[in-house]
Structures are given as structure tokens and as C-alpha cells.
């Protein structure tokens, strides 16, 4: 934790006017995006982001400053989101990750758009989803993700690697949707 963060934390602990709002402003966008993408729903994302910051407010006294303030907040956020996903899953219907060590041959080249990717992310197993969103979307490095998720750096690399392979398979095999203003696109120019 750097000096500016330590000062802000102290101001928050003293309940100084505006201090917690500043902490919120510093981290709201990333927490909100993380919550929306991990939950797969803006409505759930807003509820989860609220819960994250209420927890931060309550637990700030126990924050020892061993890690960066952001790492602590995103760890709390990720854990809350993963708990939410676990509560939401129907017992007996959880899917186990397949062995993704070897990528299957893609049926066609990847020609997806951002909406396709948003949808595909929600199909990932929870652990893969968290690692992929933190790394490829939010831009954390594997060392930071290890600290956030409480896993080894190598495990983070492996999770992101497997998530990418799953997404590739999902996106290259999914049926192309046809909607107004959006024609199916193939790389060879034929539709």
C-alpha cells in the first residue's frame, strides 16, 4: 500500500467527511465492471457492487495494508461475485471443466463480435471466468490475479489459457445469429 492509499484509509477510518466517497470514486468503475461481467447481469452487478463497498466500509478496520488497497478491494469483490454465482447455481447441474489441455480443432475461424464475447464469457466455469475477466478485460497481470484470487501465479496463467481455449471453441462453434442490422459474416465473404 502506498502513502496516498494509507492516508486515504486512515481518513476513512476516522470517518472524515468525503473520504469514503473518494475511495469509492477511485475504485467504482473497476468494481462495477467486474461485478457486471462476473455475474453476467448489470442489475446483479449493481447489487453486488453495492455489497462490495458496504463490506469494504465495514472491514476497513481489519485491512492491514499488506497488499495494495485495490488488490484487497478486488479480492473482496471477486469473492462476493463467486459466492453469488455459487448460490445461483442449481444443485446437481454444475458442469465440471473438461480437460482443456489440448485445443480441439475449430470448426471455422473465429469471427465473433463483442456481444458474442460477452455472451461467451457467461458460459465459462466460475474460476476461468474470474481469471479471464481480471486478465484480458480488466488488465491485471498474473501476479496481481494470484493475490486477488488467492492462487499461484502459474495457476492464474493456466486458468486464463484454458478460458481462452473454451471461449475460442464456444465462439467458433456457436450458430451465427441473424438480427436486424446484423448479417452473419464469414471470412470467405459468403454468408
Amino acid at each position, binding site marked *: 500500500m502506498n502513502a496516498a492509499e494509507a492516508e486515504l484509509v486512515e481518513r476513512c477510518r476516522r470517518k472524515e*467527511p468525503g473520504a469514503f466517497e473518494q475511495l469509492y470514486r477511485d475504485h467504482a*468503475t473497476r468494481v*462495477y465492471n467486474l461485478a457486471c461481467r462476473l455475474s453476467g447481469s448489470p442489475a446483479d452487478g449493481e447489487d453486488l457492487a453495492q455489497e462490495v463497498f*458496504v463490506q469494504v466500509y465495514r472491514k476497513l478496520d481489519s485491512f492491514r495494508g499488506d497488499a495494495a488497497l485495490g488488490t484487497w478491494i478486488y479480492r473482496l469483490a471477486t469473492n462476493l461475485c463467486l459466492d453469488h454465482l455459487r448460490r445461483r447455481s442449481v444443485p446437481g447441474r454444475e458442469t465440471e471443466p473438461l480437460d482443456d489441455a489440448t485445443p480441439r480443432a475449430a470448426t471455422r475461424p473465429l469471427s465473433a*463480435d463483442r456481444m458474442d*464475447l460477452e455472451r461467451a464469457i457467461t458460459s465459462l466455469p466460475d474460476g476461468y471466468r474470474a481469471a479471464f475477466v481480471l486478465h484480458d478485460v480488466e488488465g491485471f497481470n498474473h501476479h496481481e490475479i494470484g493475490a486477488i484470487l488467492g492462487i499461484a501465479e502459474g495457476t492464474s496463467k493456466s486458468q486464463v489459457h484454458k478460458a481462452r481455449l473454451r471461449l*475460442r471453441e464456444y465462439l467458433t462453434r456457436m450458430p451465427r445469429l441473424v438480427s436486424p442490422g446484423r448479417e452473419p459474416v464469414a471470412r470467405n465473404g459468403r454468408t
Partner: protein
Amino acid sequence: MSCERYHDWINASVDGTLDSVERRELEDHLAACPSCAALAADLRRLQQLAQGLERLAAPPSLWTRIDRATRESDPRRRWRPGAMWAALAAAAVLVLAVASTLLLVRDRDPQPGTPAADPGASSIEVARTVEAELRLAEQHYENAIAGLEQLARDRELLDPEVAATLQKNLQVIDGAIAESRSALQMQPGSHPAQQSLFDAFRTKIALLEDTIYLLSEIRRNDQVSGTASGTNGDQSS
């Protein structure tokens, strides 16, 4: 080396963590292996898509919800009816007075797209009205601040550090109010200038509320300490 080993390198190349020797070897392999070349192209495309996903802005209501939830969960920040009624009454009067003033300013401001019968005369009238209302709001603030300062002087309640922070914050907010007022004098009908002024007023109201609350808590703790020491004195005698 097997294709499987190159898959790790392909991922590392997408992350940008391959060294130059490994990168050259991987490029040679990709040139000779269509399957791995397709995988590399797809993963790079996937990364581009991920980096280009829309950055969602947290809705303004989120902070309101969090602020309310933290106040309700924290007895030190929660307003308690019956406790320090004088401080609460002072805060309520202040909020009411300023809110009324701001509503008057807003209501008298012409809405965008509303045709004015006489643009020149209307502009002058709005300027005079806004100026008068601002003077009124300022008077309310000065009265409220003077009352707060009196409370602080009477008991020397505020910690010097807190008092300095309060003073600094008030100066920042007063600066924002002055800037907004200056902008409004130049453009009496400017919605951004009005919004800026309202935001500054609201910030000042929140700060004054917190100050009043802080003062009331210090005063309450003083009373508890006084009672406790009086009780101890009785026991020892």
C-alpha cells in the same frame, strides 16, 4: 517440440511475455503449422475483443445506495431522532432554506427550447432574480456557518486537525460556489453553471451535516465521560 508445447508459447505471445528467441522459434513453427497459426490468430482476435469490451460507467444511484447503507449500518454516522435535537434542527433549517432557494432559482430558469417573449428583457430579469436568490442563499449559509463556529468556540470541541480539514474543505467548496456564481453572472441561463452551483451547495450541505453530527457526538461523549467520572467520584467518597 510438440504442438502442445507451442500452445503455451502462443498464450505467452498473446500476453507479450515471450523473449525474442522464443518468439522467433514460434514464428517459424506457425509458418509451418496451419493449426497452430489458426490458434494464434484466434487468440489474438479474442484478446482484441476482450480489450475492446465496453467500459461500463457505474450508475449515479450506486453511490447513493452505498452511502445510505453505510449510514444505516454505522451507529456513529446514523442520525438518531431525539439525540441532540438542537443540532438536528439546525441542520434541517439549513437544508430547507438552501433547498428552497435552489428550487426558486431552478424554477425561474427558462428550460431549453422554451421560447422567450422578449429574449433581451428576459435575460436581464433572470440575471437579477438569480443574483438576488444567490445573495439570499449566501446569507443562509453565513448564518449557519456562524452558528457552527459559535458551537466550536464555546467548547473548543473540534480536534485541530479536523478543524483544519474542515476549513480547507469549506474553502474548496466556497471556491467552487464563487466560480459557479461568476459563470452564472456571465450566462444567467446556463444549465451547466447552475448544475455546478447546485453540486457545490449540496456538497457544502453534506459537509455541514457531517460537522454538526461530529459536534453532537463529541458533546455526547463528553456528557457520558462527565457522568462516569461523577459516578466514580461518588463511589470513592
